[in-house]
């Protein structure tokens, strides 16, 4: 059913049809509307979940950890400072192989305090053992949650999934969204059947001390599960398309890539603006395309190489950077190409940090600059007078 709803509501509705047993979250802009909507759905009896109001994001993450350990399907949402406060628990959730879903309304990280969008928050946790998906628009984010549960709960995977959506740009935007009906959701997503759970009838110990003779293999196993998750993500995207007719690419997606010589690479909502820019550049005869990264973890290195290996130049446009190094996405793309004979020229560029608007003009200018020469660690639209 097509409905004209806010992005946060698209998330809440996408989560609600997954029938989570437990929802726990803490207010923080721009995520707040998501939990408000979920609590309304619970209050109205539409969603039959335990909604736990907590004292902090650290508490929220711990509550959903406990819920998942007890065999419940669990959900939380946060952003920025809240995600950082969850940090210790995030590693615990993946280390304990608990497949829950947390939505991150991506936002810049303080200081200075800034409530607007970039990807600095999520990228902090790229090493934390979470499957990380990035949505481009509100339809995709609505559809991503049911996929996320299906991926994470696949028994061989048993890993948590972080659904990323751009704060404000998506969370607060009203768009028509084709919402998933409860019946279709129930057909698509089976009940959570965990590998292990806390149960008085089968009293296992969870969370033991892992001394040096045991710990390393726990990391190996998470790494293996991550690698195995890639085909599962693709399979679930395919199944979703068959059932619902919607497709966003599997782990990556291309736009006007066929004869493109220069390609933007990006994640999230900026892909929409880039597509518009590409259309205008194409009208002027420029051979330009976009590679959208839908999944950052596990890292789709082979798929990216395959998509970019014949291209001349790549502009990686990132909404985060590793201060003192470079962009995390561009560094990993470069690393993926290390062992290949044909490497495109790769420019690392940072844009939109702290919610700075990225215009089509800036994107087109960037294209022409890169066409001229490679740009390295370039801050798009940097105001020299403020530096």
């Amino acid at each position, binding site marked *: 059913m097509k409905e004209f709803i806010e992005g946060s509501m698209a998330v809440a509705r996408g989560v609600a049809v997954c029938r989570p*047993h*437990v929802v*726990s979250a803490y207010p923080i802009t721009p995520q707040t509307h998501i939990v408000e909507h979920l609590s309304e759905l619970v209050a109205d009896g539409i969603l*039959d*979940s*335990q909604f*736990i*109001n*907590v*004292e*902090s994001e*650290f*508490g929220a993450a*711990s*509550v*959903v*950890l*406990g*819920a*998942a*350990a*007890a*065999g*419940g399907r*669990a959900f939380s949402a946060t952003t920025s400072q809240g995600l950082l406060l969850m940090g*210790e*628990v995030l590693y*615990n959730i993946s280390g*304990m192989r608990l497949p829950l879903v947390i939505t991150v309304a991506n936002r810049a990280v303080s200081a200075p305090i800034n409530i607007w969008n970039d990807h600095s928050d999520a990228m902090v946790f790229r090493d934390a053992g979470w499957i990380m998906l990035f949505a481009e628009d509100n339809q995709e984010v609505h559809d991503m949650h049911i996929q996320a549960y299906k991926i994470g709960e696949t028994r061989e995977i048993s890993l948590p999934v972080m659904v990323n959506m751009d704060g404000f740009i998506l969370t607060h935007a009203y768009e028509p969204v084709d919402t998933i009906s409860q019946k279709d959701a129930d057909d698509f997503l089976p009940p959570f059947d965990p590998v292990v759970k*806390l*149960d*008085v009838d*089968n*009293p*296992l*110990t*969870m*969370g*033991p*001390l*892992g*001394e040096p003779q*045991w710990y390393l293999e726990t990391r190996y196993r998470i790494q293996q599960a991550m690698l195995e998750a890639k085909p599962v993500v693709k399979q679930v995207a395919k199944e979703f398309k068959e059932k619902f007719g919607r497709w966003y690419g599997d782990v990556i997606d291309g736009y006007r890539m066929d004869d493109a010589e220069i390609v933007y690479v990006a994640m999230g909502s900026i892909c929409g603006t880039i597509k518009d820019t590409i259309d205008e550049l194409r009208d002027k005869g420029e051979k330009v395309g976009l590679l959208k990264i839908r999944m950052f973890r596990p890292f789709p290195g082979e798929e990216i190489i395959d998509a970019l290996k014949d291209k001349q130049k790549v502009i990686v446009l990132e909404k985060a950077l590793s201060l003192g190094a470079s962009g995390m996405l561009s560094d990993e793309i470069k690393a993926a190409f290390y062992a290949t004979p044909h490497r495109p020229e790769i420019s690392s560029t940072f844009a939109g940090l702290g919610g700075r608007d990225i215009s089509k003009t800036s994107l087109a200018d960037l294209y022409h600059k890169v066409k001229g020469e490679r740009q390295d660690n370039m801050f798009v639209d940097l105001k020299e007078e403020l530096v």
Partner: protein
Amino acid sequence: MAEQAVKKKKKTKPPVTESLLAPGHRACAGCGEALGAKLVMDAAGPNTYVTTCTGCLEVFSTPYPESAWKMPWIHSLFENSSAVAAGIEAALIAQGRDKDVNIIAQGGDGGTADIGIGCLSGMLERGHNILYVCYDNEAYMNTGVQRSGLTPFDARTSTTPVGKRSMGNQTNKKNLPEIAAAHGIPYSATATVGYPNDVIRKVQKALKIKGPKFLQIHVPCPLGWIHPTDQTIEVAKLAVLTGLIPIFEMEDGKLTRVRKIGKNRKPVEEYLKAQGRFRHLFKGTPEAEAELEKVRQIAEANIEKYGLA
């Protein structure tokens, strides 16, 4: 026939069965915390979900691939056993699995009174049907006896060392049971392994009450307090009999029961002398005497406040 009847009469109690905290755990000999946990688990019974903070209790009981726990048990982090328990409760309710089960969240004094107090407060205030048990050995034992918010006045710890300008810890024990009670919970109490049957009674009483419950059990640590391993019970009793550790119950915020010490009252010196962590108070210097007087005042204030006399 007649012989059998005689035998039956003699056998008054069934044979001792194994505890729900199985042996083989690596607690130090004479560990009060291990004893406390054993008493709590056996009082609660097997239909109990347990969450535990990082600390001695967790480390000595669950080095992979071994676990001493015979009920469903989980350790997540140092400061979140109360929040994890809340999540378990919520999931059990949502799955219809919450009938006739107990949930116990537990941790040391550090995991409870210091780093975990936020999660604890949230759990108490939200009304979960969970018993929180704090094993108070008055310092961060697992990391080598550092001071916590429940370390008593003048105690030597590895972060409140005794020196030319220091007589040990210069703060009083945070009154955590009253902080818990102030959340409006139905039951908050203290107990001690010095009186094990009282621990059992309080756990069973608490578990019959619906809502959040808090129990703080004083558990000597021979290693950190520096006393012989056979003295655990004796030291625990002296803490009570000197008035330094008041044993009480608060129901719906009101003090309803205390363990009177009356004529059995002992001078604080007896308790302090039994432990190496207070050795510096017996140097006989005017400074040491002044400190002893302050400790006497603490005992006096407790006796007055809780009506222990």
